[in-house]
């Protein structure tokens, strides 16, 4: 007897849950050959708004966790990713048209990138912070702190999993929470990645994934007063100067688009931090 396959419903990821879009919309995800693969939820501005609320709620807990603990939690994600490699390889081959070898290489690169950033969790402060020389009996220390809630547009034309990972990992490391719009035409890996998040130790709301159109969502993101920084990595094809102008209204930090996949660097971590300088007496002389 033949069996009916059970296709997966790809939904959004908000606050640790997988809701459908409040708008009720979906869009078709096709293979490179143009064949129907799945329906993905087409996120709306209200989904985005809900995601920002979830991210804001989760932010104090995530940034309040010790750096060591955040590193452990992030490392755990890489472990779970490793165990689900086959699923990601399959989705990448199907939607991006990669060969099995290319797809496997992308998943490996994504896991390695994640590990690379996870390692920085309890180290970036030491490297990016400093003791400033002052002429008095004080310590003057500058330390980077997470910015808060970060909105991100993942790369839209390069590897869907690697691009997503290279975008959100540096945001999360320092204790920010993120609302990310993944690659529009290849959102399946992002939702499968969200399933990894949901089954590892990341608190709900730390990562929120809104699949859909960056052109529709980015302006709402840029003008949202409760988003503290905006990563325009994958916004190269949008009118990103206007997005930066809208973001400036609420003094939102922005990071300009990149070609391809953002290179792993400490600068991407510190781009989403604020420097706090503190004075402290050296002794009671």
């Amino acid at each position: 007897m033949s069996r009916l396959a059970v296709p997966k419903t790809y939904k959004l990821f908000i606050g640790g849950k997988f809701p459908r879009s409040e708008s009720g919309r979906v869009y078709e995800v096709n293979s490179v050959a143009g064949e129907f693969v799945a329906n993905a939820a087409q996120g709306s501005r209200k989904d985005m708004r809900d995601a920002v609320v979830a991210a804001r709620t989760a932010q104090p807990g995530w940034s309040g966790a010790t750096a060591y603990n955040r590193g452990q939690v992030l490392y755990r994600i890489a472990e779970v990713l490793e165990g689900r490699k086959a699923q990601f390889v399959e989705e990448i081959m199907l939607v991006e048209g990669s060969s099995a070898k290319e797809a496997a290489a992308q998943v490996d690169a994504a896991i390695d990138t994640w590990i690379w950033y996870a390692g920085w969790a309890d180290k970036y402060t030491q490297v990016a912070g400093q003791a400033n020389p002052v002429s008095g009996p004080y310590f003057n220390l500058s330390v980077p702190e997470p910015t808060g809630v970060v909105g991100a547009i993942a790369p839209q034309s390069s590897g869907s999993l690697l691009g997503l990972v290279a975008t959100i990992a540096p945001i999360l490391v320092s204790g920010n929470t993120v609302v990310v719009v993944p690659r529009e035409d290849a959102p399946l890996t992002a939702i499968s990645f969200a399933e990894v998040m949901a089954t590892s130790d990341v608190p709900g709301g730390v990562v929120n994934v809104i699949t859909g159109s960056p052109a529709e969502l980015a302006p709402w993101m840029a003008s949202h007063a409760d988003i503290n920084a905006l990563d325009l990595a994958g916004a190269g094809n949008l009118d990103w100067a206007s997005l930066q102008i809208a973001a400036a209204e609420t003094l939102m930090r922005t990071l300009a688009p990149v070609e391809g996949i953002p290179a792993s660097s400490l600068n991407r971590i510190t781009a989403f931090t604020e420097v706090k300088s503190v004075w402290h007496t050296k002794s009671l002389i």
Partner: protein
Amino acid sequence: MRSIPAVSDLTAESLADFLRALPGVDAVGLEARAADLGTRSIKTSSKAWAIDTIIKLIDLTTLEGADTPGKVRTLVAKALVPDAGDLSTPTVAAVCVYGDMVATAVEALGDMHGDPDQGKVSVAAVATAFPSGRSSLAIKIADTQEAVAAGADEIDMVIDRGAFLSGDWWTVFQQIVAVKEACRRADGTHAHLKVILETGELVTYDNVRKASWLAMLAGGDFIKTSTGKVAPAATLPVTLLMLEAVRDWYAATGQRIGVKPAGGIKTTKDAIKYLVVVAETVGEEWLVPHLFRFGASSLLNDVLLQRQKLASGHYSSADYVTLD
């Protein structure tokens, strides 16, 4: 039409007969009706109207053991200018504080102390051993008189739930009558009396209906759901039930009684549902400060965020409203 006995004619027996004769509440129907009314979609200009109406109906509240005169002055400042970034924002109806903070609130309000129907801000005080109500009648009366003497325009009293639940309705009734008398000022006017039923402790909808009628019979100007100190506080079905009692009272006597849901209403979306329930049950003429109030503290900030969103077109953040 139910015939309403006069306060002076009531005895323990006739009160009990009256309350027992009230029909039971169809709980499933009530909740379904409330849920159905909660699905209305209020958008654009209606939403703008609803938002300003909600602000005008808020009793901005601080009822903490840690309240200081400074905190009460801050609350009053917020009541007068809810959003310093947009001076077209209306003022709230009243500030609601503990009795010993009334003088501070009155002083802070200055010229703006007055009738919310005329755009001013009232001072409401909780009294009668709020929130538990566990003290003697003499103390409850003294508590009330003190707040009224200090300048409170409205008294939020709690009923004796212990007496109510043990079936001693007459005691509850007499206490409300006594507190109402204590609300009287030297010039013959009296402070508005809001009777808190604390529906979260009354257990059943039937009890809420009985308590509502009891409070109206005893002369309450308002019936209020909760103290905010007990969960569940205000819910949509309970408020609907109380509004129905108020509607029936109006039909029988021609007298309009106010309703105040309090506690647990934190978002604009929730508050709008209450407006819909009021409009559909007793009519829009009830959406004025002397007939409907929200007892709330954090609700105002959410309403202001929504108001800012409507005005600017983009989503606002908690950075743009005051910390409470």
